Structure formats: C-alpha cells, structure tokens
C-alpha cells in the first residue's frame, strides 16, 4: 500500500509537474500585446517582449486609420477604426527598436512612434 501510495503520489506530482510545464509552454508560446493608437501617440509607447517568443499585437485606433510598422523590418499593418487588428511576429534579435505610424494622419504624424524592447 505504502509503495502504491508513494507511486500514486509520485504520479500525481508528475502530473502536476507536467501540467505546470504545459502551462509554462502555453505562456511561452505567445505574448499578447495590446496597443491603442490615437493621433499622435501609441499607448503604451514602450513595450517589452521576449526574444524568440511569438508576439501577437492586438491593435486598435480611437480615431482614424493609423499605421503600425517596426523599424528595420517588413512587419507592418494598417489599423482601421472599429475593429481589432492582429499582427503576429517573432522577435529574433534582442535590442531596442522604434515602431511608428506609417499612414499619414496629420500634423503630428512624424512624432507618432514608440519603442519596442526585445529582451533575452
């Protein structure tokens, strides 16, 4: 019995451990980042993500169409009013990158940018 109980307990611990690992794997599989755009700023304007972990940006706008583009990459999309625009990418190099609006939105368009930090 004792042996059996020990096995059962061990099996239970293993199951919990596996579940924990799966849970960690799920969390590590993607990072969801919500960003709201409004002339002439992104909120939040600074975001941090983990290198090698896929990122899903959930992008919305509070006024008109805006762009969301990450400097030095082909990663970009247009954020249209009235819906959430998803953009997926996986950062492969740590560092600091600018993201910016690339859809002309008015007098402060040139200042509409933010900072993306990719950490190990």
């Amino acid at each position, binding site marked *: 019995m004792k042996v059996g109980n020990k096995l059962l307990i061990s099996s239970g611990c293993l199951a919990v451990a596996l579940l924990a690992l799966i849970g960690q794997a799920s969390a590590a599989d993607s990072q969801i980042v919500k960003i709201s755009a409004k002339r002439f700023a992104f909120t939040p304007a600074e975001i941090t993500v983990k290198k090698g972990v896929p990122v899903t940006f959930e992008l919305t706008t509070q006024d008109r*169409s805006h762009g969301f583009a990450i*400097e030095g990459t082909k990663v970009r999309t*247009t954020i249209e009013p009235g819906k959430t625009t998803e953009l997926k990418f996986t950062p492969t190099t740590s560092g600091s990158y600018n993201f910016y609006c*690339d*859809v*002309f*939105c*008015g007098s402060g368009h*040139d200042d509409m940018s933010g900072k993306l930090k990719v950490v190990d």
Partner: protein
Amino acid sequence: MTNELDRRDFLKIAGVGVVYISGLSTVSPAQALQAHKAKDFCFVQLSDTHWGFEGAKINPDFKGTLTKAIKEVNALQVKPDFVVFTGDLTQTTDETSVRKKRMQEFKEIVAELSAPIVRYMPGEHDAALDKGETYKEFFGETHYVFDHKGVHFIAIDNVSDPTGSIGEEQLEWLKGDLSKLSPETNIVVFTHRPLFDLYPQWDWSTKDGAKAIDLLMPFKNVSVFYGHVHLENHHMTEHIAHHSAKSLMLPMPEPGSVPKRQPIPWDTAQPYKGLGFRNVSARTRRSMYDLAEYPITENGII
C-alpha cells in the same frame, strides 16, 4: 540592382549650384527616328512649399521664401517652358476651410510665375486627410499625362491614399498608358514620394512603388523627379534615374544621419541653407537632362 550615383557625375558650376547630367549619352536609330518631333527645352521643378507652415525656428521667412523662389525663376535667363510643383504645396490641416484658404493663397502667389504653363502634384500634406478632394477643387486631377516636345510626362499620385500607395486602379491606368508607347520613348515621371525605398522608417518610400518601377523598366529612357524628402538625392534603379528636389520651406537631414526625422533649424549664418529649386534642361534627342540646382537668396536674385 540599385546604387547611388557617382559624385563624379556632377559638375560644379560657380554661382549656380550643381549641374547633374542624367540619361543616356548614345542615340539609337529608333530615337533618331522620333527626334524630328523632339526639341530641347527647360522646365523648373519646385517642391514642398508647405504654404501655411509657421515654424520660425525652422524658417523665419515662412511667408517670403516662396515669393523669393518665384522671383528667381522669373529671372532665369532661359525661360522654362513650364514649372511643375511636385507636392506638399500646403501644410496639412484638419480644417477643410483652412486647407481651402491655404490653397487659394498658394494659387494667388504662384500666379506671379511668368512661365506659360504651371503644373501641380499633390503631397500627403495636401491630399492624404481627405483623399485629394480639396486638392482637386483647386488644382485638378492628382494623376495625369501630357506630352511636350517629344517627351512623355507622367504624374503619379502616391499620396491621396494615406498609406502612401499608388493603388491597383492607378497602376492599371499607368500600365494602359505605357502600353501605347514604344520602348524608345523619352519618359519623365513626376511624383511626390520616392518610388523606391529611400528610407522607409522615415516614410521615404511608396509602399507599392516597386510595381510602378517594374512597369517603367522596359522603357530605355526614364527619369523620375520627386519631392517629399526635402533634400537633393540622386539614385538609380537599374537604368532609371530618380532625382529628389529641395524644399522651399524646411530642409531635412540626410536619411539616417540623425535618430529622429525632424527639420534642420534655421542657421542665421547661412539663411535659406538647404532650400532651393531645380532647373532641368531637356536635351531630348539624346535623352539627357541637365539639372541645375538653385539656392534661395536674400533678395531673390540669382
């Protein structure tokens, strides 16, 4: 393959600025055949006047720079056949009434040009917020073609769509226009944004510009004149030459030379530095264009 042009291609001309020789130096039989309708001529490119801008730290003479440029153009010894404005005639505004006022004022000022023909292009400051509606009221269509002394001119609109794209509809129109031309045709393209990726992170590109370049590529003699970047830049996409013009309101730094894109502050020691316009002498029989860059001077005197 793309590459920046060799500085040796430039000839220094005292008192004028820089003259650049653009185009081919050989004449094919087909070109010779069409040379009978080709005549040499000049045109002037003015760009990025941003009428309505009022940043005194960047340009304290924001009310007078355009007038000085017009005075200089009118004083050119060889009169241009036409003048073209390659976009951002006015500074952007959310208010339609203000946009109309600025466009009306701009038209009244440039009416002082003595050139027989003045042509216009929109920039994103003129047209992106209302998809070119107000611009069309004052200046007509945002894309068009015309022929002049053996050269086929094409004005491409890459700003009325705020994403900075030409769009499939206009690309089809371009394809249809080009389908009527022989590969030997002298083609000059006017546009606002660069058709190639000069520096996309500063919005110095056209998202579908490569499609327009692909359509133009079969033609042997193509030069593109554009604005938007507020500095002089010369670039080749294979045999197609691209020349950007200086602004007549606010100069910009070289792409990537500073962390953030912003206008260069006024230098009291060198007023009007970085501002200017361009005279283009078309030697159509040889498909060559001589570019002369003119600075703005205190008294509007060349």
